[in-house]
């Protein structure tokens, strides 16, 4: 049954891609059918996911025809968990896509839908793969899909560089995975993932574990691999960003989860490194996000932050496994899984909503976008809910996940190794700091973009987010931000089934203290009931409101409308409203040594009709330290090496074959001496 559903899903996607490649976006149905196929296939995959979370583990052997070794496909609760997420998000993003692609000229040519469906298919196959070859093959297919999506709008400035960066980092990650897999399969004499289960721990398996972490981290954007996210995501067209950031990036996490289950306890240094780097990624990601001037870049940097947060949770799980504390491992992994869930729905909602807004306004410049909530109520609401979730505010699912994250880090005192304790405390401080900065960044987005003065432009509004499918898609993305939190106990039960594959038991279910109250796995540490907060906080709100209305004899409802207070003096020139740039200025000033922000005075020539002369504008720029201090020097060294190697480039075929022959001989000598 599951097999039939999966084949049907892949076939529907392939058919959709075929329609896109043959018919293209010129015809109306050619713009709609492929994304409709995306939704149908995703629904099937979601059904398979639910069935396999509730069912047992199945492994299908597809024989040796497709690859060097047996091609294996497996369905277990962990795979089911990620399939559910992929399928559910796929349905929502596809219906956003249909509504978005409906007006002509948004999608051009042939490749958009095909690349999108390729991404969906690759994600599904990665989650299903049970042998190294299939896993890597689908992984590379996903990299290709990302490259295709980011290079569709290659005529726009900066996009070409973004797509090369996406491809390059994807290849680095794939390379790390490949080397790690080769080490493991060399040890186990098999490419089947299940054969790696009981490998004895040795420096080789430790190195392989680290390489797998590097490979997956490159996909999700951990420092120093995060550089492709802020330019790569915005380069993709419309809702495809949601598919990349909210849906496809999850396979990186899936890989981490899967290999923790397969390889077991990691080396201690790896846990410490993941905790520290995860914390730094979270902080750096949101600090840079908060000062960006473009909407899509802010949202993309928030993905970097979330990758860091999730990796911190994963680091706690690694630390728990490495030091033999299954409870610590369970709470860390549960926190990280909840954060994945929160990030997936909220980020898809943010990018889905921003696609409509950007297409309507024609820009994603934060200084221009104002009051989008009034022009696009549905997109505005979805954007607001997504932002609340990403800022980790109650009562959204982001709040539950961040709470679990901090509680997981607080279990520091149960571990005895000083390095782990210190790095957990360090990560805790960084996670808390990035939470605070996330509030700063998202208040900026909601307060100045969704709310605020409504734009005076009078160009006709396109209400494409009121298309029923657009409303459905955005609703399916935004409402779970609240609903998942209200249903948190059930969510944890569902997650617990899947995580049992990794943790080797239903440890994560101890997070349920009673049916409606949560605790961080360890009893008597602390408690939280998001479901009851959903009851109590509205009651408190209603009480306060009705009490005030009654006390004021309904005078509360009668208000006077006046212009906002600006200053005691009149005649001050300049924009009334606080600008997004100004809002972030305090951060730019205080974190100047992290952000590398510099200010320079720029003289502006007075315009003829203005009697104000000699304005001085202040220009501020932000320097990404990883780019400035890691990639640029590396690039310089690389160029220097390339100039050196140019001398070897004689252009003679026999010389090249000679090099190859020498290389082969050296390789053979190395192999011979290694034995």
């Amino acid at each position: 049954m599951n097999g039939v559903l999966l084949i049907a899903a892949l076939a529907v996607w392939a058919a959709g891609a075929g329609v896109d490649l043959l018919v293209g976006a010129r015809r109306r149905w050619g713009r709609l059918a492929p994304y409709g196929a995306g939704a149908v296939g995703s629904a099937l995959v979601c059904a398979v996911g639910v069935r396999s979370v509730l069912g047992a583990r199945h492994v299908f052997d597809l024989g040796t025809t497709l690859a060097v070794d047996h091609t294996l496909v497996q369905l277990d609760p962990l795979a089911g968990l990620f399939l559910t997420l992929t399928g559910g998000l796929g349905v929502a993003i596809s219906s956003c896509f249909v509504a978005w692609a409906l007006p002509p000229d948004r999608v051009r040519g042939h490749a958009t839908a095909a690349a999108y469906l390729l991404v969906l298919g690759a994600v599904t196959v990665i989650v299903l793969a049970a042998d190294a070859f299939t896993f890597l093959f689908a992984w590379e297919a996903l990299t290709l899909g990302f490259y295709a999506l980011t290079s569709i709008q290659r005529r726009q400035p900066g996009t070409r560089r973004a797509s090369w960066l996406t491809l390059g980092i994807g290849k680095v990650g794939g390379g790390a995975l490949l080397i790690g897999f080769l080490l493991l399969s060399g040890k186990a004499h098999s490419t089947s993932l299940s054969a790696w289960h009981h490998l004895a721990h040795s420096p080789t398996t430790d190195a392989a574990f680290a390489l797998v972490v590097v490979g997956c981290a490159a996909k999700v954007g951990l420092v120093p691999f995060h550089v492709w996210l802020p330019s790569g995501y915005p380069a993709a067209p419309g809702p495809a960003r949601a598919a990349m950031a909210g849906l496809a990036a999850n396979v990186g996490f899936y890989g981490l989860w899967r290999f923790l289950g397969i390889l077991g306890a990691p080396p201690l240094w790896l846990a410490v490194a993941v905790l520290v780097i995860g914390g730094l990624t979270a902080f750096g990601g949101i600090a840079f996000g908060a000062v960006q001037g473009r909407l899509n870049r802010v949202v993309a940097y928030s993905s970097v932050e979330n990758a860091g947060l999730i990796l911190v949770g994963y680091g706690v799980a690694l630390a728990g496994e490495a030091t033999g504390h299954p409870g610590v491992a369970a709470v860390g992994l549960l926190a990280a899984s909840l954060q994945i869930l929160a990030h997936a729905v909220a980020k898809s909602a943010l990018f889905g909503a921003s696609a409509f807004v950007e297409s309507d306004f024609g820009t994603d410049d934060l200084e221009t976008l104002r009051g989008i909530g009034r022009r696009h109520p549905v997109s505005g609401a979805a954007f607001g809910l997504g932002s609340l979730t990403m800022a980790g505010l109650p009562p959204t699912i982001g709040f539950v996940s961040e709470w679990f994250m901090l509680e997981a880090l607080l279990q520091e005192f149960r571990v005895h190794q000083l390095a782990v304790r210190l790095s957990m405390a360090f990560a805790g401080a960084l996670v808390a700091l990035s939470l605070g900065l996330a509030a700063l960044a998202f208040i900026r987005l909601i307060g100045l973009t969704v709310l605020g003065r409504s734009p005076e432009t009078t160009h006709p509004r396109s209400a494409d987010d009121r298309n029923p499918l657009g409303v459905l898609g955005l609703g399916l993305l935004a409402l779970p931000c609240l609903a998942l939190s209200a249903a948190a106990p059930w969510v944890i039960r569902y997650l617990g089934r899947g995580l049992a594959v990794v943790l080797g038991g239903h440890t994560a279910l101890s997070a349920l203290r009673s049916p409606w109250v949560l605790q961080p796995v360890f009893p008597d540490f602390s408690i939280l009931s998001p479901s009851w907060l959903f009851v109590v906080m509205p009651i408190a709100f209603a009480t306060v409101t009705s009490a005030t209305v009654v006390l004021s004899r309904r005078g509360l409802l009668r208000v006077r409308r006046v212009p906002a207070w600006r200053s005691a003096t009149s005649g001050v020139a300049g924009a009334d409203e606080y600008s997004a740039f100004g809002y972030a200025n305090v951060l730019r000033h205080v974190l100047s040594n992290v952000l590398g922000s510099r200010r320079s005075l720029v003289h502006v020539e007075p315009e003829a009709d203005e009697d104000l002369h000699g304005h001085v504008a202040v220009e501020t720029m932000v320097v990404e330290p990883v780019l400035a201090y890691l990639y640029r020097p590396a690039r310089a060294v690389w160029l220097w090496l390339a100039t050196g190697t140019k001398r070897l480039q004689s252009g003679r075929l026999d010389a090249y074959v000679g090099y190859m022959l020498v290389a082969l001989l050296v390789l053979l000598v190395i192999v011979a001496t290694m034995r």
Partner: protein
Amino acid sequence: MPVVLQVLQSLTVLVGAPLYVGAISRAESIVASKRGPSVFQPYRDLAKLLRKGASVSDQASWVYAGAPFVVFACYLTVSVIVPIITSQPLPLAFLADLIGGAFVLGLAAFTMALAALDTASPQGGLGASRATWMGSLVEPALILVFFTVGVLSASDNPYLMNHAVRSSPYALVLPTHVLGTLAFFMLVLVENGRIPIENPSGSIEISMIEEGRVTEYSGRHYALMRWASWMKLFLLSSIFMNVFVIPWGLGNAHSLAGGLLAIPVLAGKLALCGLAIVVIDSSFAKLRFFRIAEFLGAAFLIALVGVITSYVVSV
């Protein structure tokens, strides 16, 4: 009986908060050799504001109008989960722990900042930007304080923490606890906009932080905002005294007499806390805005040293 106590606890916070603030400002005036307003002045302010109509910015949306109620509801929610008059959890205490409470307070701050930006007033934006930035620097120090709590009591639940300190008073003098307490007190000052962060009695446009966010509010909305901020001071001071400094003198969850008796005891504790605030308010100058980061950095460092000493000196 626990239900009655639950209501009593929230009422204590609601009614006690203006009195607490009034007492502090009276005491400050006396220290400054002035007579000062009556301790009941905040009640009169509230009564007057609640009778007055409101004027609202023409740019504001429903977010602005709803914000005071959300903020007030947040503080009301926190008042049911922390130990104010009893040392045992009341019926609704399972809602959240200290960190969960901090998140609810975070929602209040977030809502206030949004409302400030919603008015499209430059003052509001300024206040929102500054206050949120300060809030983000408070978070890491606060979480390290919770780390010190977790080390000492193996929990993050205020009731269990209170219990742990009561059962081994020796913990009160452990360096971890002392440093955590000190850091928490500094955070209470920052969160409530007291000296050395901000002058709570004056509002000068250019240096406004907390006041900047509510500068557009008037009438009943403003009354709720003021009341909510007083409740915040009351709540944080109570947590500080009941959990960190003097964990004794609380009633149990089953006797009304114990709960009623705990109220005067709480008043005594708050008098001590208020005295400390008055002394600081009167003897220090307000910090320059960008020096606030250093003040918070100091709180962070103190808490960090507290966590590190726990590796060496433990209970």
